[in-house]
């Protein structure tokens, strides 16, 4: 049987004010029926542009050459997406090829019911009555694992959880039984346990519906879990293409090797943590901790007479000087709230939280201000944590000026240069504006800013989750070096167990506002006791197809048991 998708010599460039920019260069790919082809690469590699081309979704500023041949599932018709008219494209979209988006919370229209949105897609292609379309919507919702689809077909998107929304989106993509689904980072926005479920569903889609999938992702674990074949893209070109097993076992291209080496593995950090523990002076454990939480409780007030939302529900932990505590949890587990409370950005409503000896429960800003210079904070998104109107040097100098260490940003420049060097940024970058730096560079600058006052405590809230994997590896390495050099204590918050493992001396796992497990990396990751930690660990896909297949079995058993 012929391929569902044949891309030959595809080139795409975008017209910009600065002339044409080439995004995709001479790409040729094929996808066989029922096959999962993963396209991996970093941001800017052209993988998403390639994916959008398959549905003809590129903006008008794009010019294309080459051919994108798409066959219908029964093989009765074939069309070249590049040369189709708008009307013809509309016919193909949804029927022969459909798309699953990255962010399930924004890919559904909030003001229409999911049933309405599914039915709309059905009725855009052919003669279905409203009743038939509704029946089909209910059927497909049931098949993607939405419980009680007869009722839920009338629900609005906000009434579903994130994972369920992604199921609904997959249902929409499947409803007209297309031969090909393009999934653009379908699990990136989801928690790792939910990710495992969605990957299972996509596998079922391939097996039960015989749908081919083009999987766009930067996560090598996801690739190992689902893909049959992998194409690695770099700067608009396909640099390597191989069956998944082969790509992971013997990568050929330099870039692929680098990419695979940059992927964090669980277990990497155990040796390092042990080495750090060895190096500590005797009597280290007797030092007064910099942070002590006792039965810490944080509740966000509800709106007018409604009960509040308990984000952190009675947790206890401590961070000793020079120690890195990794805080792991899914979205909504309360990990960010905990970090913000330590930095005095969120009010503590119960229990006790002592930061540098200062009680945060009922704290007054005036009394706490002098402690602030001793606490650094690194934010998740480097794109939004810098004032776009200030240069990098001004941003980094700001804490120095605020705390009276320098009279103005100019006077602080010498110190700023030192800091930029410490985070391995060229001095000249101080004169640039935030938007002129890449994500990784901005996050380095963010580290420089947080370290400007040589704090004894640093709170890093998902500092690498917005970065590409190879950039993430370098930033994590930098973080470890700086920590060694400056010796600050740190609370490192992340949803990614493997990332936390690399840096942390001890790991604490949060689940629904409660601390379910705490211990060294070897204890928590090596022999997890709490069922949630076990599930979390088992859900994390590893970049090795053979091992991942075994792990998948393990997770299935764990789920069946739990």
């Amino acid at each position: 049987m012929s391929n569902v998708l044949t891309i030959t010599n595809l080139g795409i460039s975008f017209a910009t004010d600065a002339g044409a920019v080439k995004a995709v260069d001479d790409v040729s790919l094929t996808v066989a029926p029922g096959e999962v082809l993963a396209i991996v690469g970093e941001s800017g590699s052209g993988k998403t542009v390639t994916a959008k081309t398959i549905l003809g979704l590129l903006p008008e500023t794009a010019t294309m050459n080459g051919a994108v041949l798409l066959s219908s599932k029964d093989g009765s018709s074939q069309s070249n997406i590049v040369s189709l008219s708008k009307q013809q494209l509309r016919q193909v979209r949804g029927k022969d090829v459909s798309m699953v988006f990255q962010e399930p919370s924004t890919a559904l229209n909030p003001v229409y019911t999911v049933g309405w949105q599914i039915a709309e897609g059905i009725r855009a292609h052919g003669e279905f009555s409203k009743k038939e379309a509704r029946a089909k919507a209910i059927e497909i919702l049931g098949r993607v694992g939405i419980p009680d689809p007869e009722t839920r077909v009338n629900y609005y998107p906000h009434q579903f959880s994130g994972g369920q929304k992604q199921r609904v989106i997959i249902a929409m993509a499947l409803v007209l039984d297309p031969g090909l689904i393009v999934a653009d980072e379908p699990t990136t926005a989801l928690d790792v346990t939910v990710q495992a479920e969605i990957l299972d569903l996509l596998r079922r889609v391939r097996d039960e519906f015989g749908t081919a999938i083009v999987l766009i992702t930067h996560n090598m674990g996801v690739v190992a879990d689902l893909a049959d074949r992998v194409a690695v893209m770099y700067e608009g070109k396909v640099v390597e293409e191989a069956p998944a097993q082969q790509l992971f076992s013997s990568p050929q291209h330099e870039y692929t090797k680098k990419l695979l080496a940059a992927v964090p593995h669980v277990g990497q950090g155990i040796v390092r943590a042990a080495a750090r523990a060895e190096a500590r002076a005797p009597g280290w454990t007797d030092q007064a901790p910099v942070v002590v939480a006792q039965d810490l409780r944080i509740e966000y007030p509800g709106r007018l007479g409604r009960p509040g939302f308990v984000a952190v529900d009675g947790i206890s932990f401590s961070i000793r000087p020079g120690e890195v505590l990794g805080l792991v949890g899914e979205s909504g587990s309360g990990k960010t709230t905990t970090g913000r409370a330590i930095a005095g950005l969120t009010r503590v409503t119960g229990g006790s939280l002592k930061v540098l000896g200062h009680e945060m429960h009922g704290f007054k800003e005036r009394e706490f201000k002098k402690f602030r210079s001793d606490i650094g904070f690194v934010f998740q998104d480097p794109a939004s944590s810098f004032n776009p109107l200030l240069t990098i040097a001004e941003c980094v100098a700001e804490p120095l000026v605020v705390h009276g260490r320098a009279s103005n940003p100019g006077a602080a420049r010498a110190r700023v240069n030192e800091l930029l060097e410490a985070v391995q940024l060229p001095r000249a970058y101080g004169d640039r504006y935030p938007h002129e730096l890449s994500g990784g560079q901005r996050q380095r600058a963010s580290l420089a800013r947080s370290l400007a006052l040589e704090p004894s405590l640093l709170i890093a809230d998902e500092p690498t989750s917005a970065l590409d994997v190879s950039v993430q590896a370098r930033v994590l390495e930098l973080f470890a070096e700086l920590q060694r050099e400056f010796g600050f204590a740190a609370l490192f918050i992340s949803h990614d167990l493997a990332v936390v493992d690399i840096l942390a001396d001890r790991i604490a796992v949060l689940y629904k506002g409660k601390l379910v497990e705490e211990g060294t990396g070897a204890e928590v990751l090596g022999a997890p006791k709490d069922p949630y930690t076990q599930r979390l660990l088992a859900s994390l896909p590893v970049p090795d197809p053979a091992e991942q297949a075994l792990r998948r079995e393990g997770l299935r058993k764990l789920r069946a048991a739990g």
Partner: protein
Amino acid sequence: MTTVATSPAAKDSRPAGRKSKPSGGGIGRYLLIRFLLIFPTIFILVSMVFWLMRTTGDPITAALGGRLGPEQLAERIHAAGYDRPILVQYFEYLGQIFTGNFGTTISTNRPVSEVLMTYGVATAELAFYGLLVAFIVGIPLGMVAAYWRDKGQDALLRVFAILCYATPVFFSGLLFKLVFAVWLDVLPVAGRATTGSELEMQLLPNPTGLYTIDAIQVAAQTGNTEVLADVLQHAVLPSLALGLLTAGVFLRLVRTNVIGTLGTDYVDAARSRGVSEFRLVSKHAYRPALIPIITVIGLQIALLLGGAVLTETTFEWKGLGFVLIEFIKARDYVAVQGIVALLAVIVALSNFIVDIIAAIIDPRVRY
């Protein structure tokens, strides 16, 4: 209003075991709170009007000072009770308003409530037509501009929008009169209806004061549709002058919001399912864009009423704005106070209605 609170929609239809945290209560509870908030709003507005008016002294002196001798003035002030402590007068005023009694005008000696009734309906009619024009012109054109964003059509519409809201009502009103009433002579210059029509409507057993409805009544009873035609013809120019002012704002607002929602993932997602471009704008981008628009429309109603004052004066439309000017000229602060208070109440009420509409559009508010 309690029926709203206990309507079926108010029942919490959230399923048990839903994972994400509830974002709000039932719609009934939401609307009940919004409804209850009207009362403090009105109270504050009415109080502000009272105290602002009284900073200038008592109404009798303001209206008749210089025309009557000091003794006569004192006598009338005493008769009207304006020589009592201001707090006593304030509470009396609040109590009267509560029972619908707004006092008596000084210049014409009529109950203010009667003035409000007679002229209020005329203003309501004008505001309704103005809003209608604003909707019919502003919203579709805004969508068209969004669809052709940054193209010629869009540029033209944006210039049109600027012209609409940058031209003062009295100027556009005069221009309309000049073109349509004087040069082309197809529409009447001013007023709400010809005297003949007004007489005919007054003969009705229960005239509402809303000329459109009265004219329909006339047509239903006597088969005389000329009155209706006459009334509608009179309404065209004032409604256009007033409505276009707001239409320009609506156009810009709809354009910006629709462009914003056209860039969202869910529009791209719908496109990837083969939904037509027309539907993307008319359904997927339009309805979510309406949510912020509705809120601004609520604020616009206040501006519309302000615009009505100018429009009514320009077109001799005998509404609240028209008489407000008369009363201000006569320095009749009791009447002014009543009119301003009524306008405040209308604004508070219309904001409540806007909240209801927003709740109907946005399911996240409803559930």
